[in-house]
Each structure stands twice: as structure tokens, then as C-alpha cells.
């Protein structure tokens, strides 16, 4: 996006007038200027009309269903996150411990290799699924549907 060009003093005053950001004296001075310049008055009025028209736009008031959805998952979000952190921490610790026990055991090398391959393959698939779900869940068009 290209940057917006800076405004002239007059354009700044026009914006401030429309948005009611001028002091009393500045406002009166700008109104006197408008009386003498029909073009300025016309442009200012068109901005003012645009502001008034959009103020009448209705807000997106949430429906009862949306409010239920909003609160249903609100306060338990922290618990949800904590649960995942604890679960994943436990899995990682167990996996490391299990790997150590496996490597230091007297099992044949083929069994050790197969066990490692199964755990590694499962972890990659699980990680891939979780990552994909996290990345795309926001864009699932059916996520708002209550089942």
C-alpha cells in the first residue's frame, strides 16, 4: 500500500472541523472561511454527510447463540492450555526415559531399531496432524456449527 500524501493546512483544518477537534476560535475562523469559499464549504459538507451516514450504521450485535458460544469457551481457555502443556511435557519426559531404557537394554538391535522407528513415525504423524489442525482451525468454515 502506498503512503498517503500529507495534507495541506486547509485540509487538516477541514478534517478537524468535521471531527469536532477544533477549538472554539479555530472553529469560528474556519466557518468564516467557508462562508467566503463555496468550494471549501461544499467539500466540508460532503465529508460531514459521509460521517453522519456511517454513524447510522447498525453495529454487529451478537445473537444469543453467538454469546453462548463466546462464553462457553472463555474461562476454561487457560485450563485448556495448561492441560496441553502438562500432557505434552509428560509425553516428552516419558519418551526420553523410554528411549534411554530401550537403548541400554539387552534387546536385539533390530527390535531396538523397530521400536525407535515406530515411536519416531508416530510422533511425526501426530505433530503433523496437530500442526495442521492448529494452522487451519481458524479457517474451518464449519467450526461455528453446533453439533
Amino acid at each position, binding site marked *: *500500500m502506498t503512503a*498517503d500524501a500529507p495534507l495541506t493546512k486547509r485540509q487538516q483544518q477541514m*478534517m478537524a472541523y468535521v471531527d469536532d477537534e477544533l477549538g472554539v476560535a479555530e472553529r469560528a475562523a474556519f466557518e468564516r472561511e467557508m462562508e467566503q469559499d463555496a468550494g471549501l464549504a461544499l467539500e466540508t459538507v460532503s465529508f460531514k454527510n459521509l460521517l453522519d*451516514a456511517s454513524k447510522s*450504521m447498525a453495529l*454487529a450485535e451478537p445473537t444469543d447463540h453467538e454469546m453462548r*458460544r*463466546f462464553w462457553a469457551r472463555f*474461562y476454561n481457555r487457560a485450563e485448556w492450555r495448561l492441560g496441553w502443556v502438562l500432557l505434552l511435557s509428560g509425553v516428552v519426559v516419558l519418551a526420553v526415559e523410554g528411549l534411554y531404557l530401550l537403548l541400554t537394554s539387552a534387546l536385539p538391535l533390530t527390535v531396538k531399531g523397530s521400536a525407535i522407528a515406530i515411536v519416531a513415525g508416530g510422533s511425526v504423524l501426530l505433530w503433523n496432524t496437530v500442526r495442521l489442525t492448529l*494452522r487451519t482451525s481458524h479457517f474451518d468454515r464449519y467450526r461455528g456449527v453446533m453439533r
Partner: protein
Amino acid sequence: MSVAEEIRLIAGAKHGDHTSFETLVERYMGSAMSVAMGYTGNRDDALDLTQEAFYRVFKNLDRFHEGERFAPWFFRILRNACLTFLEKRRRIRKTSIHAREPGDEDYPLPDNAPGPAANAEGQEAQEELWRAFRTLGVKHREIILLRHFEELDYASIAQVLDIPIGTVMSRLFHARQKLKQALEPYMEATP
């Protein structure tokens, strides 16, 4: 809701009073949904992002200083959530089978994006205004949302967008110019 009432609610929420927090949410819910829809063009996304913003508020109430105004602080959090979401969506589009289109960095709204009042009585003028609004880039959309719909003053808008007041004025001017241009066909057709 008066400023004093808002301060009382925030103080209550800070001390763990859920009723105060829920009243605060009710007060800002419609505004927040409208702003989020202006960013995303989708009601479901807007609801999720509004929830995310309120959750961040809930978690960070301790960081909110007494005497500070709530609206700019809240809309800044909401804006960050919306922009993060739009950036993620853009990245997914970039790597998906859908080709990236010119102007994607403006986070354009889809042509069929419903307006905030889609669930209310659809008035023709509001529909036209929303149609024109959809044609703006995200920078212009957000400043129009904050000034026209939320009626924030220049100082608050500057705080939300982290830009100087002079830039607020010039961005508003150019956004309004573009909005007027987009509305011209409708204005000409209206007697």
C-alpha cells in the same frame, strides 16, 4: 456507560469479579464484533477474534493502569489480534492452491463479505455504504471503523494505531476520499 462506571467495572474485574468483567464485555461486544468484521469480513472469525481480544484483556488486566482509557487499550489489542489473523490467513493462501492476488497485502475483503448489520434489518443505504467500505485497503478500513463507528477521538485513534495525530488526519482524509469515490455511483443514482 459513564467513565466512572467503566473504571468501577475494570477495578472489579481486576479483583476477580466475573460479573464486572462480563458487564464490560457486554458494553463493548457489538463494537468489537463490528470492528473485527471490518478486518475479516466474516462473522464467525469476528466472534473468535473478539473472544481472543477479551481473553487477552482478562489475562492482562493487571497491566491496565488506573486513569487510562479502556477503549483505546482494548481496540489496540483487538487490532493486533485481527492483523495476526489476517497475516496467518494470507500466509496460508500463499502456500495453498489459491494463487496470491495483487493487493493481498491490503487484506482485501471478499466481495460477498456481509456488513455488520447483516443480521439486522438490511437498509439499502447501509448496504451501499458497506459495499463502498469493502473496496478500501485495511489501513483505510480500520481508521474509518475507529472514527466513524467507534467515534474515537484523534488522540485515541493515534494510540490504537500507534501513529502521530497528523497521520491520523491525513489517513482519515484519504480514506474518506476513497469512500466518497466508491459511493459516487450510488449518490448519483439517488434522487
